[in-house]
């Protein structure tokens, strides 16, 4: 061996590597964690680092063919970077610390007191204090998952988080964000009228530091009552101070989680988080669980994990399954429109939210238990899938039941749907889609059920066929086929006719 400098360096490096990879680094780990918390990177550095990490992970997932991982990254990448910006750039007014000073008042003869018996949320006893607070002291909670898309969109456009007033305007629909459906999404005006009539029926719940865990809509509705000329002075006076429940200083994140789960996942007659938001939460938790597994979980283990998730969120394992499937399709939908069609991701997510139930319909029929399903048809035809996504995004699928008929795909249907995609008028396009699907369904039924019509047509065709055609036009192969078919059916036909005339 030639003992060059290079070889010497290589030998030294092997010894160094052997030392490094097995070094006792307990103190170094602690130090690194401490540095991370005490000297966080600047927001720009954070975003740049996260971008780099996610890009590297995405490349690894692609190389390993890890579709689930890729999908999970597609969902987490934007929200993670946005979260980094939000957390690091949020003004002090949004930090829990400032809200820590929220004070109880004596009002309506009620002084602050323990809530008794201790309330239970999601099987957990959570001690709370009840009392009145000034409405103006309550800060809306930007961390509310219900507002996640809206906040991210606002921040992308304005490069800052919304103020409390802007947050309220978003909730009352006075601040319109592109892609939002044209109606009062949070139904604040209806709720305000109800509160003006009946008062706040259930106290909003605050964390000890004043974070509004439950009741963003109620508090916004009360603020709306105070500012709107539609309410009387007496009605306004009634909402100046409102009764709230506040968690104790000993409550931990698990308690807050229990409150959120109980009030947003447990069945109840209130406007819960939209299915899309709930499904996103489940989907993210599912991937976190999968990533914590030491090896790819078996089918049995997956079922166990789904049951665990179902318990955690007070839903059934079937709902977990359904949400996961729907999110897979929503993910494909968002991925296609964002990357291939260059649509704004937030606008796309609003549409996902609005049409989320449609993904349930799309997800059906992959197993083929009742024949070929929509999911299977779309899986096998990328073009049709993208066509459906475009139509959905443009509001040209007016009814989720239409999705079911996409399984009757044939050339004619594809052509007609293409026409609908190009049609600029949404209502006209909806008519085209409906007609195209109805025709495709009829054609399919004709193929599978129209025996008599077909035989009649064939008989008429044969009877009209000139004899010379058998000599000049019809190939030997066709002649053989015809003869074979006629011989095959002859026996059945004669037996059946004999039976009928007997």
């Amino acid at each position, binding site marked *: 061996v030639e003992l060059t400098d290079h070889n010497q360096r290589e030998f030294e490096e092997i010894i160094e590597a052997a030392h490094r990879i097995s070094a006792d680094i307990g103190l170094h780990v602690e130090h690194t964690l401490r540095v991370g918390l005490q000297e966080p990177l600047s927001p720009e550095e954070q975003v740049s680092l996260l971008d780099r990490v996610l890009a590297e992970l995405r490349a690894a997932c692609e190389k390993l063919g890890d579709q689930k991982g890729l999908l999970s990254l597609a969902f987490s990448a934007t929200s993670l970077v946005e979260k980094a910006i939000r957390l690091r750039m949020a003004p002090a007014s949004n930090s829990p610390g400032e809200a820590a000073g929220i004070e109880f008042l004596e009002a309506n003869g009620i002084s602050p007191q323990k809530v008794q018996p201790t309330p239970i949320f999601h099987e957990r006893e959570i001690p709370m204090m009840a009392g009145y607070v000034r409405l103006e002291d309550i800060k809306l909670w930007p961390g509310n998952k219900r507002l996640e898309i809206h906040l991210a969109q606002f921040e992308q456009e304005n490069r800052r988080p919304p103020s409390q007033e802007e947050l309220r305007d978003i909730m009352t629909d006075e601040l319109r964000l592109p892609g939002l459906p044209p109606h009062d999404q949070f139904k604040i005006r209806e709720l305000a009228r109800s509160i003006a009539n009946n008062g706040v029926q259930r106290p909003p719940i605050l964390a000890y530091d004043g974070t509004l865990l439950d009741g963003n809509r109620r508090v916004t509705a009360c603020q709306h009552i105070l500012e709107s000329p539609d309410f009387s002075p007496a009605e306004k006076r009634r909402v100046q101070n409102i009764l709230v429940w506040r968690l104790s200083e000993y409550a931990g994140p698990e308690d807050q989680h229990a409150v959120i789960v109980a009030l947003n996942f447990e069945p109840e007659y209130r406007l819960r988080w939209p299915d899309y938001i709930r499904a996103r939460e489940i989907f*993210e938790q599912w991937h976190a669980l999968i990533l914590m597994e030491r090896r790819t979980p078996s089918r049995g283990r997956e079922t166990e994990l789904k049951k665990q998730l179902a318990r955690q969120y007070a839903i059934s394992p079937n709902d977990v399954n359904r949400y996961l499937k729907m999110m897979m399709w929503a993910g494909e939908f968002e991925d296609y429109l964002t990357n291939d069609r260059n649509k704004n991701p937030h606008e796309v997510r609003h549409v996902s939210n609005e049409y989320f139930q449609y993904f349930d319909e799309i997800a059906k029929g992959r197993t083929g238990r009742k024949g070929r399903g929509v999911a299977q048809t779309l899986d096998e035809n990328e073009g049709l899938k993208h066509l459906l996504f475009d139509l959905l995004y443009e509001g040209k699928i007016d009814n989720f039941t239409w999705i079911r008929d996409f399984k009757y795909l044939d050339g004619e249907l594809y052509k007609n749907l293409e026409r609908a995609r190009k049609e600029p008028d949404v209502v006209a396009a909806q008519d085209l889609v409906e007609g195209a699907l109805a025709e495709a369904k009829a054609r399919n039924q004709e193929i599978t059920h129209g025996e008599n019509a077909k035989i009649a047509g064939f008989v008429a065709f044969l009877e009209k066929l000139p004899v010379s055609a058998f000599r000049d036009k019809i190939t030997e192969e066709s002649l053989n086929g015809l003869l074979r078919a006629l011989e095959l059916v002859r026996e059945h036909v004669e037996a059946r006719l004999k039976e009928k005339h007997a």
Partner: protein
Amino acid sequence: MTKVLYETGILDGLARETRKTGLNEAEAADVVAESVTALYKAVRSGKEIRDAAAFLVRVSYNRASDRFRRMPLTRPLDSAKELVTQPVVETITPEEDERRRALMVTKVRELLPSLGPTQRRVVAYIVDAVEDGDEDVPEERIAADLGLSQPAVHLAKWRGLNRLADLAREAGLVSNHYRLQPSKHIEEDAAATDAAEEIPGREN
């Protein structure tokens, strides 16, 4: 996974610490990204990761060192009147690098019989891991796999690698001034272990 890592602040810490080794911001970000990806691959391949933070610290340190090793040497131009440095590009192809490493691993193995039995087992285990590209070989794992106590592994490794460096120096396989440099806490640990008399597997 990334979300959890981000929220613990470990990514910030890794980036800061990696920069202290002399890498610039972009290079440090690359190292952090590679380390997180290595963690993902390790988890996916079913490798047992007892401490994700320790894994990341170890791998990022390893990757940062590796980057240094592969950096082209720089030297001042003789003819330059100003203090200008010009890279002397040493183009080492990955194949050449791999061939050279394989050759030197063979040389390391040839020296192993000169170590004591426990040192030999421990160092051979680690050299195998280096060869396999394993970047996270905690002493607990070595101890469990070889049926030794962790202090015994700790001591045998430190002494074995030092002995290996001495032997390599004598054979001219490393430069005359090469010494294995432990981090401060490792030295302290070794000193503390030296002070203990009854260490299972202790040899020298």
